């Protein structure tokens, strides 16, 4: 079943991707082809089968809460496109939210 342009726009919005109209059309058809192919999974009987989230089984190993060396502020900011005052500068977030 082909994905509608509205669905493609919705997914792109969730994923914070700005697409051109031509990308929207192209991805709609390409994604539809992949999802159609993936639909064959619906025919598989998985009753009683537990999902595999990790082939090793998930665990959360703990360690003692002891401080260890970590990168310096300079190292962390070195790659930032807009560092300022020892912080990451970003556009205003709190006013005029969409």
């Amino acid at each position: 079943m082909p994905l509608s342009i509205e669905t493609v726009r919705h997914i792109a919005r969730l994923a914070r991707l700005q697409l051109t109209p031509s990308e929207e059309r192209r991805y709609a058809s390409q994604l539809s082809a992949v999802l159609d192919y993936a639909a064959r999974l619906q025919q598989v009987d998985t009753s009683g089968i537990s999902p595999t989230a990790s082939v090793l089984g998930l665990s959360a190993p703990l360690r003692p809460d002891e401080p260890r060396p970590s990168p310096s502020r300079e190292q962390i900011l070195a790659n930032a496109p807009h560092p300022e005052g020892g912080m990451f500068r970003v556009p205003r977030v709190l006013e005029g939210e969409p």
Partner: protein
Amino acid sequence: MAEITRLTLLEAAGALRAGELSSEQLTRACLSRIAEADGRVHAFLHVAEDLALEQARAADRRLAEWRRRGGEQPSPLAGIPLAVKDVLCLQGVPATCGSRILEGFRPPYTATSVRRLLDAGAVTLGKTNTDEFAMGSSTENSAYGVTHNPWNLERVPGGSSGGSAAAVAARMCFAALGTDTGGSVRQPACFCGTTGLKTSYGRVSRYGLIAYGSSLDTVGALARSAADLLPLFQVMAGHDPLDTTSVEDPVPAIQLDGASLAGLRIGVPREYFIEGLQPAVEAAVRQAVGQLEALGARAQEVSLPHTDLALPVYYLIAPAEASANLARYDGVRYGPRQGPGQYPEDFFVTRGQLFGPEVKRRIMLGTYALSAGYYEAYYGQAQKVRTLIKADFEAAFAEVDLIACPVAPTTAFAIGKHGDDPLSMYLEDVFTLPANLAGIPGISFPVGFDPDGLPIGMQLMAPHLAEAQLLRAAHAYQQATAWHMEVPPL
């Protein structure tokens, strides 16, 4: 100079230990070879010449000290020039993941896998080309240009570790690191006539591997033989407290020589010999199985009934995980930022402009598969079928020790062949995806050439953490044959 780069890793290591060659000589030979050939191949995105020579001199001092004073023998990797796929972090050296969104990024730390090789004295020549964020099977998805197969420059080297495979094949380095999430070490190794090892999930730390699919990603290596791969595996493998998915099981000390294949049971899965398999590939793989039997192994047919479901399962799970892993690329902490300087437009524009089409497709696929109303039907169902695929291997390994099969349906295809048809590209991965879904190791090694002179590879898969079995079987095959010693005329 040319002769030096024709040495195997182990031959170079022997010459270094004996003081017949220096690491600086080896490194300069590789750098010359890169200068001579990489204009045509484009395996490297960044050559770290000064760093490499500094590392080489340090290795030479260490080796000289050892020859003078004795003590613990240096690793075979001491002084050996290697290449590193550009999805792995090497502090201070650019890491792009083949993407514009990480243009200019220099990691503040080094990946554990790379750190261990450096501690053993290895030399890092630079970073190799990759499909963007490791998403692809041809290296055509790199934002920095395609890598050309050294066997035929109009063909792809495979992907996503195409740069690493091409660099090894073209003798620009003695071995290279790659990563394998859906086949990205095994398939390019196959297309470029090299030997490539996909490690068991959890065997090598993923700390410092820029994430694509966290339940699937593995760090592996490519070299000219199983014997050359072994030291990289021994040095990199093992638990890392910085990666909570790394296993605590000790890494065995593996001996390759003297290993006999007598009594080794090899399963040949009927589901992998499908229509669409290139006849020369099938013939070479079957002949290679025969060669393993001549060495003492016993082959039998096995069944992996859910094989044809691996592709849809992978192309739901991997994109879902990628959509989460790539959410961090927002132009705030690293990489360029684009847009009008407004929130949230800058996120949309940065990501829309700086991610390539395949990455955007997979992010969208993953977002859809995880979205409300579709989660159970797509992602949830895929996870359950993943359990069935894993169980297929467990059942097979109750009957056989190794599984032998093709690596890819064809030999290296032409650059541009799959055009703008993602699904046709995804179908290239059918034989490699299952091992990632099951978390098991696999090795790819050369077993012949097709009528066009392109390398053909065979894959062996083993149970989780059984890399020793893979390396021993591949080594035994390589002691009895010479396919892996062929070099492209480039």
